């Protein structure tokens, strides 16, 4: 299990858990929930912010938020 912020470009992963107090509710409502798939589409310089696709939604979040979302790589 690794934080989402360490996921590499193009890797597929599945969300395992989130640190609920550290991430905004909006993100949860947009689909950042355990069990959903996530991929990184693009990273800005210094890997911040990140452009992700979570469960059909394309969204951008900052690295400081991505640290609190934990994912498991899928081959």
């Amino acid at each position, binding site marked *: 299990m690794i934080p989402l912020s360490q996921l590499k470009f193009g890797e597929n992963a599945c969300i395992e858990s989130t640190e609920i107090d550290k991430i905004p509710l909006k993100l949860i409502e947009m689909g950042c929930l355990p069990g959903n798939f996530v991929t990184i589409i693009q990273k800005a310089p*210094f890997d911040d912010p990140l452009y992700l696709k979570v469960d059909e939604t394309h969204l951008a979040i900052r690295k400081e938020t991505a640290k609190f979302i934990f994912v498991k790589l899928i081959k």
Partner: protein
Amino acid sequence: MSKSLNIALLGNPNTGKTSLFNSLTGLSQKVGNYPGVTVEKKEGVCKLDRTTEGYFIDLPGTYSINSSSIDESIVVELLLNKNNKDYPDLALVIADVENLKRNLLLFTQVKDLGIPTILVINMADQMKRKGISLDIPILEQTLETKIALVSTRENTGLDELKKLILDYGIISNKPLIQINSIDKKYFENLENAFPRQSIYKLWLIITQDANFGAIQRTLISDISKFQTKSKSEIKRLQQKETIKRYQFINGVLKKCFQIDKASATDFRSKLDRVLIHKFWGYLIFFSILMIIFQSIFSWSEVPMDFIDNCFNYLSSVASNNLPSGVFTDLLSEGIIPGLGGIVIFIPQIAFLFLFLSILEETGYMSRVVFLMDRGLRRFGLSGKSIIPLISGTACAIPAIMSTRNIESWKERLITILVTPFTTCSARLPVYAILIAVVIPDGYFLGFSYKGLMLMFLYLIGFLMALGIAWILTKTLSIHSKSYFVIELPNYKIPLIKNVALTVWEKTKSFVEGAGKIILAISILLWILASYGPGENFNQAENIIQKKYPELAEKEIELKTNSFKLQNSYVGVLGRSIEPIITPLGYDWKIGIAIITSFAAREVFVGTLATIYSVQNDDNDTIKNKMASEIRKDGKLLFNLASGTSLMIFYAFAMQCMSTLAVVKKETNSWKWPLGQLFFMTILAYFISFLTYQILS
């Protein structure tokens, strides 16, 4: 007897609520392909049948009923307050067919509030391309509602929607999810404490208080005492609620939603890899900006000269053909030149809005937010601040309102305070004419000096905004949490109709707005410039003749006219402020133009045009009149130093009463707008002073 229905348009951001609203009501509210276009409640009427009128209420987009920014809280406040005059009889939840799952989250919440809710699935035109198929009857059954499949782009499904609205009585308002199942004991207590209330509504009020600050609710039951859970516990329950809703939705969609991955193209991801690439993304962004500035300048040169000449011709026709008298003078020296000073800028304004609306409609705007977030954060702004900063190039007023979807109050306040530094379209006329007069022709690396100067002016406005933002971040002690979540919409080919409409509406309102002001000002100016107090004005001819007996008649006339103008009412007024602006390189006529342009910056040129026409009615273009204006010491008034100093002044000064009013409204205090006025004026004066002194 006619009935009326209140119908609220709800839905996730960017699903086409405003597009639907416009189609139904015939209005033209702003539409754009990025989340957060609508930030206010807007109303419009549509006749549904012979006896029923629908009052449609367009609302800002929200991902759920739990709000995290000002624009979203407008929705919650409406839905929780039954006594609100706009409280809906019926809600339409507008969903994007490509992202049905996430859109249904809000649908289930609205339905659970007990409001009859119709699901409108929009963008039906995209289904084929994305390989989506839907079983509407099953979906209607499982969601216990009626569904309209529409495409506002192709105008399909709207009549069916109207029929469903008229029959809204048959829709069940039973909740879909039992909220108390997420924490039995807690909700039992809540129910016992407030037996006659809707339990889901109570829950929303509690969570709203905990997460976003108390909502205004004069008549909603006061349950602030019922706080038996910590914020963190409440958030956990909200997550539980969200999971529960998604479980339900997944179950529903499994039965009736299919997506054929093979026929779906993933064009957007490919395009995104380039457009927001670490290197190419920035290069493309700056190239786009360069092209915009260059074309604003070079494409509009020909039509501008044409319009300028037309107005001259009009002036001379008026003065030659109408019976001479005060009215003819007023027309040919006051009103026509004044209006000409506005109309001449139509081409540039139109091009500016053309580019802006293409950027907004394609979906590129959100990519810029992504590219700029990290850079802007250093200056205490959010990536989302880029939208006000870019749309501020049209006008600061909607730009300041669009800050409403920035979640953090500190970032939002700072964005509001620095947005007026962005070069708005009202400054463009001032820059355009001054650049045409004082910047030499010539090219640098294929870019004209004139276009580069324009780009430079936009750039210093932007850099000043950043600099001031940085200072404010360090000095304002406001603590508010900052986070950043933004959805990146799919690319869309701009709808020519939308783009054309925006350009037309904006250009029209530019001409009308500024036209009215300049009409009033040019009449006033003409009167003040054509009459004057005392001997100097009335005996001007004699005084000049005595002073220069050797001059020819033509020269005497010129000298008399300018002497008269100097001693007219406006001249006396202007010369009394002249000492303040002389150090910046301006004369009293420019001073008058600066004062009148406080009403609206774009009347600067019109004002000068009127003053120069009174002084000398030889029917030359505005540009030539400015270029040949001589200072007291015999040099040209508009030279590189004074012209640049004037442009710098306009770049930094807070010269717009409407902006001050909107800042007051958005910050709820006079402290901020007055501070802006004071500070920006001093800053503009000081930097213009330095510019003039260094360049001359």
